[in-house]
Every structure is written in structure tokens, then in C-alpha cells.
């Protein structure tokens, strides 16, 4: 049946089975390839999007569960205050290597920063340990989140 969902502020009507994971609707049906496939089982975080601002694994989120919630993806996260700060800090700290997992990392980090202005190391561990980076950019991710938080408190 057809579902109408809101992604990055636009309404989309999609005719797929209700148990189809959001990830494949984004990537294959709508062609929004910024959200990545890594494991299909919520084990790696590469597919992280925001649903009503909460970091969510789109690979296990069925399309029929979304209803009226607002989906935000990496393509639009730069339009949020926390997302823009995180992206800037990522570039400043040269976090990225192969980059494949970084959409998910940035989505998790943006959700953290939006809800926690000054995350501690433990807060960062809790928010980010579901996101695997095979290139091992963890050290720089931690530094970049702290940098983004500083610009937060400075009002920048």
C-alpha cells in the first residue's frame, strides 16, 4: 500500500510493503543515497537518521511505523543548528577518512549535541558507541564533538 511520509520537510508518497525498512525507501526508492547501508541489523549505525530529532537506525525502522513523524537525513542535517556545527567541526578536525560511516556518525553526533549542550566523554561514548568506523576515526570524532559543543556554548 502507499505511505505518505515527511522527509526533510517534504512529503513523499511511497508504494511499498509496510515492513520495508526506511533505509531502502530513502536509498533505492527516493534516490537519497547519503544514508548508508552497513549491516541491516542496527549493529553499525551507518544508516542513522533522525525521527522527530531522535537518532534512529533506518535499516530496522519499517515504513509503516513512521506515520506523522518527521524524518531528517544527512542531506538536510546541515540546516539544523547542531548539524551545521557538527559538520563544521568534522571538517575542521579532518575527521573523515573513507567517509562511508560518517553520515551515520554525524547524525548520531548531531542528535547528541541538540539534546546535550556540553557532552562529557561518557555522554559521547553512550551516544556514539553504536556507530562503527572501520577507519578508526574515533579519536577525532570525540575531539570534533567537543569542538562543536564549545562553539555551541560560545553561541557560535
Amino acid at each position: 500500500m502507499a505511505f505518505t511520509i515527511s522527509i526533510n520537510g517534504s512529503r513523499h508518497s511511497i508504494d511499498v510493503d509496510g515492513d520495508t525498512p526506511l533505509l531502502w525507501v530513502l536509498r533505492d526508492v527516493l534516490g537519497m543515497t547519503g544514508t548508508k547501508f552497513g549491516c541491516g541489523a542496527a549493529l553499525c549505525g551507518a544508516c542513522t537518521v533522525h525521527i522527530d530529532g531522535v537518532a534512529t537506525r533506518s535499516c530496522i525502522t519499517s515504513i509503516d511505523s513512521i506515520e506523522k513523524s518527521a524524518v531528517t537525513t544527512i542531506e538536510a542535517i546541515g540546516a539544523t543548528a547542531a548539524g551545521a556545527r557538527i559538520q563544521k567541526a568534522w571538517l575542521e578536525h579532518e575527521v573523515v577518512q573513507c567517509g562511508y560511516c560518517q553520515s551515520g556518525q554525524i547524525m548520531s553526533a548531531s542528535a547528541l549535541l541538540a539534546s546535550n549542550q556540553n557532552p562529557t566523554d561518557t555522554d559521547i561514548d553512550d551516544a556514539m558507541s553504536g556507530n562503527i568506523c572501520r577507519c578508526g576515526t574515533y579519536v577525532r570524532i570525540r575531539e570534533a564533538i567537543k569542538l562543536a559543543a564549545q562553539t555551541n556554548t560560545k553561541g557560535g
Partner: protein
Amino acid sequence: MKADRIASRSDEANLSRRGFLASAAAFGGGLVLSLNLPFGQSEAGAPGDFAPNAFIRIGSDGQVVLTMPYVEMGQGTYTSIPMLIAEELEVNLEQVRLEHAPPNEKIYANPLLGVQATGNSNAMRGGWKPLREAGATVRTMLVAAAARRWSVDPKSCRAHDGEVIHDASGRHLKYGELAADAAQMAVPESVTLKRPEDFKLIGTPAKRLDVSGKVNGTARYGIDARPPGVKIATLAQSPAFGGRVRSLDDTAAKAVKGVRQIVRLDDAVAVVADHMGAAKKGLAALKIEWDDGPHAGLSSEAVARELEQATLGSGAVAQNIGDADEAIAEAVLKVDAAYHLPFLAHATMEPMNCTVHFRNDECEIWIGTQAIARVQTMAAQAAGLPPAKVIVHNHLLGGGFGRRLEADCAVRAVQIARHVEGPVKVVWTREEDIQHDMYRPYWFDRISAGLDGQGRPVAWKNRFAGPSVIARWLPPGFKDGLDPDSTEGAIDLVYDLPNFHVQFTRVEPPGIPTGFWRSVGPSHNVFVTESFIDELAATAKQDAVAYRRALLGKSPRASAVLDLAAEKSGWGQAMPKGRGRGVALQFVFGSYMAQVAEVEVSKDGNVRVHRVVCAMDCGTVVNPDTVQAQLQSGVIFGTTAALYGEITLKNGRVEQGNFDTYQMLRMNEAPTIDVHIVKSAEPPGGMGETGTSLIVPAISNAIFAATGKRLRKMPVDSNVLKQPA
């Protein structure tokens, strides 16, 4: 520069040294330079056959375009290689645009490998001199063109920031204005390279050129290819290697909404659908009976037993100095050990995938690969077409680590695409990716040493067995039972060992494919060598750093990194109970490094790596930030292997499947990593893999320091370390 400016290029650009002059006019009044790589020729052993390699194009608009023979998989090559050319060309990095090279072994062969591939940490080692010469050649021709236009001596002109300047008259011309004229200038026979003290880019941290698209979702990886009308397929391959499909019931799968077609191959079944959700649902609905084939009974234990046996026979002698047997027989103390290293999967974050449009008389492929020419050749065989009829579009790689040096995924996609109308993207599930990898080999080492009265080693004898990946991947590289990869890190050690014997027995285990894995041969040999030297120090009751230092008389660069790592790590300072420091030292990929790892072992045997100090001498540093990033990366990659990495076989099948059973190190487990670089004017060494091979013994040696337990088999087994209740 933005990643979206990295265009894909599939046209054949086969320009000979003379041909480039003729091609200049064809390029809209711009300058195209193709170059030979003399370094590569000497390795390939074909003197006189000067194949051009790196391409520089300067358009009449002044845009500098570099065709990149190496691929970007996170290691920073798309920044460091342009730095070499831009340094000598006197342009800033913002003026440079990159294109992926099309498949052409003649033009784009890696000078150290002889084939068009990015691996073995040698992009910078191979490119260091020839790519700077490439930039200098173009600069010299641009200066010559300007000098002729002004009727002045070229020596009175200089290049600066994309312009040629004549200081005496104050005249200057932009490169774009000179490109057409420069193309008519003779290619200089030799050029003068800048002095290191004049470097503006090399040695200064540079921002990566490939990142902006990687933080906003616009970067394109192979898995993001979407040719019009593309269908999505996923597949099940025979769980046992060498098995076949015995029977298939696809009734339920065909009934899934969005499923378009089921493709049955001899040893795999693919579900073709409108989207991956439907393809996966269809796959789950398939009823497949497998004939497990000849390797149905294979187990890891059987592989290990075969390797153990093989080391008892005679192998190919990789290096022999003096008489190790006699010296061991006469030694005051004899030390024996045996080491095991497990199969490992690559687990690139971007699962294996390949998009193919098969059109009877030609075939078009979208993929992210470390070896594009290999993909073209093998896909052509699978398609039944000449290679020239196979068009390959390369992309950014969501991790390579050696996995994307193989073309099996492209071959499989072509086999499926032959049955499909229109383009089809074949995406492997994570489980398929883990269970049908080409694995880091299992290795077994039987090693002995003799110590004199002072505990100093007088003899070293190592017999090891395992596959030769080179023998399959690059057959000419395997000669007389040996290849340079299998033995790197096992021979030519930095230590003074007067009697030394290392032999290798090639054993290809049946029923499990093996391949290159980040840090390749050294991923095995450095673990064995650095664990064993640590055992000798412990046997001699000496400090692990002091013991090594006393053996480094011939290796001042090794001695320097060892001392630096010891100093920065606080070596020798007391540690709390349950914690320990371990040291390891290596010279591989042309770089010297020492690491000190600090670990904590809990009562239940769990290991936490708190801190890693790296001291590195990798010769001239091109991009210091890349060196630091690659060491951080390599250490995390190796720590994952040390703590968790193990692929096991049972009944011919890989037992692991996803990140729950094949674990990765995560943010909350990541150690602090300190990188200290020794200044050097030597040519650059490799960087992408060195951190990985060294951290495994550093961790193991630290566990010994903390617990007194020597681990001779990876990964760490917490049961062995658990304290009795």
C-alpha cells in the same frame, strides 16, 4: 576542492610520449602531459618501454586536472599525491581537480606493483620522485613558453601560484594563457626538483581534498551508483566454499511485492527487485538446498593442523645467515615457541557491491575498486567480451583494506547481469560480505632461538607455513617458493642476529579463499617476530626496551624510534596492578616505528587498551596530518584484530555473520593514541598499514607485562587471562 569535483572518467586516454604533443591541439588549446615513470620501468624489468603514467592537463582556463592512478579509500592519497605535483608545478591545491583513472595497465600501473592497483602502502613510495618530476616538467614547459613569448631567457622567469613571472619587466602570464604554447615546447630530458627547504606544501599539514561531500551525503561510493532504470539484487552464495545449488523453490520469493526476477547460478541465487528491501525479503523467502561440495567437512582446526605439519618439512629458505641450527645446539639457553594467527575478514563499512549493465556486445560497470584494470579483465572474461568492451566507472571506496583489490564481486555481478534486462546493482548483505570474503590467511610459525650466557640471542630459526596471496594475485611475484609479501617482517630484521634462518612453506588451505588484508605479510610476521623477541627478553630477565636496543647496532633509525616511544610513554614507570606496558618495533613498508601499548586486564580476563604511543620515522613527511590520521586508523584496525578478530570454519562454513559475531572496536573502547614523528630527509615510507601490524604484538606484550601470560595465538582469549575465582 570538493568531492563532487572528482569526476569519473571512462574514456581511453592512451597517449604515448609523442602522442601527447599531438593531442594538445585536440584538447581545446590546453596542455596535456603524460609521463613515464622510470622507477616503475626498472621494477618491471622492461627498459626502453616508456609507458606514460600520471596525467596532468592544464586547460586554457587555467584549471589543472590530475588523473589519479591511485584510488582514495580513506588513506588520504587524493590529497598527498596532488601535493607532490602541485609543489613542483607551483599551484595551490585549490587549483587542482581530480579524476579517477580509467583502466589501463600500460599507463597507470603502480610502479612498485607493476599493475594498476592501490595497495601495499606504496602510492607515496612509488610516486615520490616521478610525480614531483611530472610537476616540474610541466612547470619547465610553461616557463619556456612564457620566455619565448617575451623573448627572454627562461632562467630569468619563475613560476609562482599558477603564473609565470618575469621579475625584471614585471610581466606575468597565467598558466591557462600559456597552456597551448607550452604544449608545443620540447619535453625536457631532465628537470631540477625543488630543494626540501623550498617546499611550500610538502611537510605542511594540508586539508583533505575529498571530504566536503563526505559530511553532507553527496559523496558517491560504488553502492550509490544509480544508472537509469537500475534494479537492485541481493544474493545467497553457497555457504560452503565450492558448493552448488541442489534445488531451488522460489515460489514464495516471487510473490513478494517488488521482486522482479530470480536468477539461479551454479553456486548462488540472486533476487532482483525494485529495491533492496524487497530483494532481502525475497531472499529470505527462497527455499534453497545446497550441495556442500568437496569442502563440506572443513574446519579451522584442520587448517591449523595441516600448517603445523607443513613446518616440519623443508620449506623455501627466505634468508640464511651463519648456521642457526649449530648455534642453537651450542647455546646456553634454548627458547621454542609456536604462534597461530587466525583468518580475518575485511568488513569494509561499504559492503561488497557492483552495478552492471550487460548489453550483449558490451558491458558497463559501476564499482569502487583498488584494482580497476583487474576488474575490467576479469569482468570481461565473465561477460565473454574483450576487455575493451567493458567500461568501468570507478568511485570512492567505503573502505578497501585489500578487499577491493579483488574482482570476485564484479565477476559475480556480471554473472547475474547476463540474465537481467537493463542495469542491476548487486548488493551483498553484511552476512554474505563476512561469509564470502577473501580472508587474511591463517598462519602458523614454529620458532626457536639460542641465547648466550648474557641472554643475548646468538641464533634465530623460524619456519612458517601459510598461503601465498601473491602467487594467485600476481603470479610472476612468486618465485622459487617465495614472494616478497609473505616474508616481509620475518626477514631483514632490524636486530643483530649472527645466525639466522627463516623458511616458508606455501600451503593453500582447500575450501577457503585468501587475500590481502591491511598490513598484509607484516600483519603476520611482525606479530611473531615482536612477540618472540619479547619472550627472549623475558627469558633473559631483561627489560624489553633495553634488550631490543642492545641489538640495534646496525639500525640507528630503529634505535631512535624505540627510544622516543619509550620516553614519551613513560617506559619503566610503575603501573597499577592489572595494568602493563608492551613495546614493539618494526621496519616494514619502508618506515620505522615503535609503539608502546598500555593495557588493563580485568579479573574476568577482559582487555582494555588505554593508550598507545607511536614513534615513527617514515622518511620525508608529505602531509603530517595524514600520517597522524593513518596511524590512529591503523592502530584501531589492529586493536580490533587483536581483541576480537577471528573467522572460524565449521562444516566448511564461516561461523561469523554480522557485527554481533564479528566484532569491531567501538568509540567507548578506543585508546588514546599519541603520534610522534622523527624528522627525516629520507624518501617517504608507507603509512597506511604500519600502525596495524605493530599494535597486535604491542598489545600482546603489554598483556604479558600485566599478567605474566604469553599469548601465542590471536585474538586475545579472555578465558586464558581470567583469574581463578
